[in-house]
């Protein structure tokens, strides 16, 4: 059984016929071909699949594609054109906020939601805000610095 869906991803309409059980993360990766969004677990724990769904951050492995039909999704590929970086991307780069980079897209997507809700968070608040995203490489410290730095540069944007 397949169902037709149409999801706007990074401003572009993506239509497809998908199985009802397909996870949104697989639609993004397989159907839309956007592999910046990662699959790090199968129990909704790691946060590597984090995207924005209608402007709110969501773990795309916990959403069915059919549930997201008609919605709009922003992935890591959509927050900048890849040349002019988003302040969070720039800050992750400047603060060595990543090593292997596998958690990074999800981390940046989660951080952007965090800053929207709290434009000038303390380091403690950043740590709490990111507890749903696991990074095995960095020990988080430079990620916290990156988010703090970006918050300063974004000035509450």
């Amino acid at each position: 059984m397949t169902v037709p869906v149409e999801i706007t991803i990074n401003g572009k309409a993506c239509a497809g016929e998908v199985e009802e059980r397909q996870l949104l993360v697989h639609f993004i990766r397989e159907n839309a071909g956007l592999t910046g969004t990662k699959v790090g677990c199968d129990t909704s724990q790691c946060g590597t699949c984090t995207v924005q769904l209608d402007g709110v951050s969501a773990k795309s492995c916990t959403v069915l594609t059919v549930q997201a039909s008609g919605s709009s999704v922003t992935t890591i590929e959509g927050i900048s054109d890849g040349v002019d970086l988003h302040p969070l991307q720039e800050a992750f780069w400047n603060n060595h906020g990543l090593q292997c980079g596998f958690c990074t897209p999800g981390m940046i997507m989660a951080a952007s939601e965090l800053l929207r809700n709290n434009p000038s968070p303390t380091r403690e608040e950043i740590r709490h805000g990111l507890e749903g995203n696991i990074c095995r490489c960095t020990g988080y410290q430079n990620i916290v610095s990156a988010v703090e730095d970006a918050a300063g540069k974004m000035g509450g944007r």
Partner: protein
Amino acid sequence: MTTRIFGSGIRRREDPRLITGRASYTDDIKLPGMLHAAILRSPYAHANIRSVDASGAAGQPGVVAVYTGEDTDGVLNGLPCAWLIPGSDLKTPAHPPVAKDKVRYVGDAVAVVVAESRYQAEDALEHIAVDYEPLDVVINPKAAAQDGAPQIHEDVPNNIAFTWALAGGDTDAAFADAAVTVGDTITLQRLIANPMEPRSALAQWSAATGELTLWNTSQNPHIARFLTCVVTGVPEHKIRVIAPEVGGGFGSKIPYYADEAITAFCSMKLGVPVKWTETRSENYLITTQGRDHIEEVEMAATSDGVITGLRTTVYAGLGGYLSTASPGVPTILHGLMYSGPYNIPNISGTVYGVFNNGCPVDAYRGAGRPEATTLIERLVDLVAAAVGQDPAEVRRKNLIPKFENGHDVATGITYDSGDYESALDSCLSAAGYEALRAEQAQARADGRCVGIGVSSYVEICGLGPSQVAGAVGFQGGLWESAIIRFYPTGKVNVMVGSSPHGQGEETTFAQIVAGEVGVDVDDVEVLHGDTDNTPMGWGTYGSRTTAVSGAAIAVAARKIKEKSRALAAHLLEAAPEDIEYEDGRFFVRGSPDQHKTIQDIALMANVAWNMPEGMEPGLEASAFYDPPNFTYPFGAHVAVVEVDPETGHIDLQRYVAVDDCGVQINPMIVEGQVHGGVVQGVGPALWEGAVYDDDGQLVTGSMLDYALPRADLLPEIEVHSNSTPSPHHPLGVKGIGEAGTIASTPTVYNAVMDALRPLGVTRVDMPLTPEKVWRAINDARNGG
């Protein structure tokens, strides 16, 4: 002109593709006609296979093929163990990629389905019927070594794969004469490495050319090629292994796994590309785990706290089979480090490598050294308590005094350089140790449970001299190679056989070249990970990439410089000995205006219009670097904790690290390695542990149950460093990848035990979860 790029914390060139989601990891790659594999895994930890009936899966939607052990038997060879430690009576029982007769841990592969989609392949697994005859199970490595334990491999009595012994000095006499002896049993529990990227393999076979291409989440693509050849029989020169972007490994992406071989088998059978990617649940079951030690240890000392002897008996769990490097980890990388940074004249140890019905165990960040450092540091604290002295002081009086070029220890190895006391001093002063002890005394007086942990460590890395590798049974070399190639425009490619996967060596390697020959760092591109365009190398693990591969690059760069000097002399019509070099320019001594830049040289060498007699065209150099010794980074760490005696909750309040990894190429990257390393060692002290039940089922089978460190659980790590160059390394570097992990487990463990000491608690196994700590406190209160 170029700034001092070598030694500066420039940001990483790896990052733009990673922060924008444009990097390609193995599972991101899609090939035309690609099919998907899913592997059926044993639900039993130990069972005979009576029969496998795969017929039900064959007709399922999308299914293209189903294979069992009957199909792979005789086609795929067994998975080899590549570290055959000598003198240990090592048994190497067969390890078929697909189990046919018997399964030995939950997750052992039994069959594979290839289908048009991953969903279909996984669905079809349910239609394979396997008739198992369950057998008794053993998990605890000490229990597994006893008479009467379930026997996992027919030809391995008592499940003992090897017995490795170490003796230096006269330990028995040291203990007989000792005024003070202390002892403990320390469990270093099984750990799950948890790189955030699950393992993946994509195989593409071409029958027309006989070539097999394997994209693989590997830390060592050249070893993967070699072992793919051994297992599949495809000749080595017809195999191309590509480790594209790799999302962390921590040792778990060193081994060669059944899954890679099975994926290659499927592609070779079907003639189309086949991809397999593990789920996280599978990763927890099948991707090699770390540690699994039970250590019975004792230390002898004088009444003044001078250590005179160390004695150990270690049961090291190996899991159901030997993994690629597993025998070397609890022996060579562990026992040889028993002296730590101390003068310990008498050391003996016996390590039993024991099969048990868990996931195979292999190198995990620190590999053998955290297990050694933890037991040493625990014992030093017990000695301090026994003689009534401050733990830092007892450390200080036992540290090997500063040395710059070689120090022999009782285990038979020679440390390269060390200044352990400076590291300890720096750490104590950064932590404000005296004030901390005063605060602790006050807190205790107020009834609060505050603990301070100190540890000194030295580790062995930069693996290593190939002759030593051979002598200790490693079935390969441990050198590295590099090619540096200048193009006519002065741009440079550096090709290396090692394969960084998060450590940032695309940046640090470019810094080495920039530092040596004065090109702009942005003019250097580092290639790694593809066996077709990189020279042979042994890979990225054991904190060896910068130490060994970096040395190869430095040596090759110096060859470039010498050729450039000769060519510059020719072009400037001067004698080579009159040519001076500074910052990318070669000039005639005394007249800096008369010069050629490295770019001028690169152009001329490439067009070769005007070369000196007998000089070959081109500006390219390669180097094979085989280190004369290992490198021995060291340091000292301090942790402060407060334990809530009513709940057993531990608050890690401060963590101070002083590491000495020799010369630093990029301090920002060094600091990042320390952050990540420390947190990976704090995890097992406080939260992490793979738990199997008595039936061999993994209880901590997901990230829900296996407690990984999260951002909100950690304090800010205070990182400092000293720099004692390695005397034998061309750049003086040592390595920093594992240091934090090696030091932080014992530091935090000691801190918690220090907090609990006034309550009468003498032993709690790691991880120090609130429940265990609370129970230990209550037991002690109840006189237990």
